[in-house]
C-alpha cells in the first residue's frame, strides 16, 4: 500500500510535483481566462486608462518589489532545506511570510483608499475586473502565507521536497502579479 502511494506517478518525477504542476495548470486557466477577458474588454472599451489612473502606482510598484523579493527568499529557503540548514530555512521562510503579509497590508490600504474615494466593484467594468482579479490574487497570497507558515512550523522535519512544492505555488502567485501589475496599473 505505502509503496504504491509513494511511487512516482511518472518515472523520474515525484508524484507530488506532478500533482502541484497539475494544480498550477488549473490555476493558469483560471487567471488566464480572467486576464484574456480583461484584455478583450480593455481593447474594446475607451476610457479605461482614466479609471486606472485612480490606482496607486506607488503601492502597486512596492507590492511588485515585495513579491519579486519574496520569490527569491522562498527559493533560498528551498536551497537551505536541501543543505539541511533548518535555521536558514526558517529565516527565509519567515522573510517570505513577512513579504506576503506586507503585500496584503498594502493591498488592504489600497482597497480602503479606493472604496473611500467611491470606487467599488459596482463602479464600472474596470473596477469589477480590478477587484475580481486582485481580490482573487490576494486570496492566493493569503493561502501561500498559510502554506509557508506550515512549512515554517515544520522546518525541523527537513523535508526539502515539501518546501519546493510550497515554493512552486508561491512563485506562481508571483507570476500572476507580474502580469496583473502592468495590466491594471501601467497600461
Amino acid at each position, binding site marked *: 500500500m505505502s509503496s504504491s502511494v509513494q511511487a512516482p506517478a511518472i518515472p523520474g518525477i515525484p508524484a507530488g510535483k506532478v500533482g502541484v504542476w497539475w494544480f498550477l495548470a488549473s490555476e493558469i486557466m483560471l487567471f488566464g481566462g480572467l486576464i484574456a477577458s480583461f484584455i478583450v474588454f480593455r481593447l474594446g472599451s475607451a476610457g479605461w486608462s482614466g479609471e486606472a489612473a485612480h490606482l496607486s502606482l506607488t503601492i502597486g510598484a512596492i507590492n511588485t518589489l515585495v513579491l519579486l523579493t519574496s520569490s527569491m527568499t522562498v527559493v533560498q529557503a528551498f536551497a537551505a532545506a536541501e543543505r539541511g540548514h533548518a535555521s536558514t530555512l526558517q529565516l527565509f521562510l519567515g522573510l517570505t511570510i513577512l513579504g506576503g503579509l506586507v503585500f496584503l497590508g498594502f493591498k488592504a490600504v489600497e482597497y480602503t483608499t479606493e472604496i473611500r474615494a467611491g470606487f467599488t466593484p459596482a463602479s464600472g467594468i474596470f473596477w469589477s475586473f480590478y477587484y475580481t482579479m486582485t481580490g482573487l490574487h490576494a486570496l492566493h497570497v493569503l493561502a501561500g502565507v498559510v502554506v509557508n507558515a506550515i512549512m515554517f512550523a515544520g522546518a525541523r522535519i527537513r523535508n526539502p521536497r515539501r518546501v519546493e512544492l510550497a515554493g512552486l505555488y508561491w512563485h506562481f502567485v508571483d507570476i500572476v502579479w507580474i502580469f496583473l501589475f502592468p495590466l491594471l496599473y*501601467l497600461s
Partner: protein
Amino acid sequence: MATDKAHPNYVAIWVWLLALMGIGLAASAIPGARVIAVTVIFATATAKALLVALNFMHLRFEPRLIYAIALVPVLFALVLAVTLVPDFVFRR
C-alpha cells in the same frame, strides 16, 4: 528533477527582475509613444515571468512533461483571448 541540480544564482536573477521592473516603470512614464511603451511594459513582464519560471521554479531543469503541463493551459488562455478578439473588432 530540480532537487538534484545545482541552484542558479538566485540573487543575480532577483537583481535582473528588479532591473526589468524598473524598465517597465520607466517605459510607463514616457509621454506619448504609447504603443512602444505598452510593448516594452509587456515584454519586460514576460521576461520577468520567464526568469521566475525557469530559475526559481526550476523549469529549465524539469523534463518535458512538466513543460507540457505548464504550457498547454497558457496556450489555451491565449487561444481564448484570440478567439474573443472578433467580439470587439466587429462591435466597433
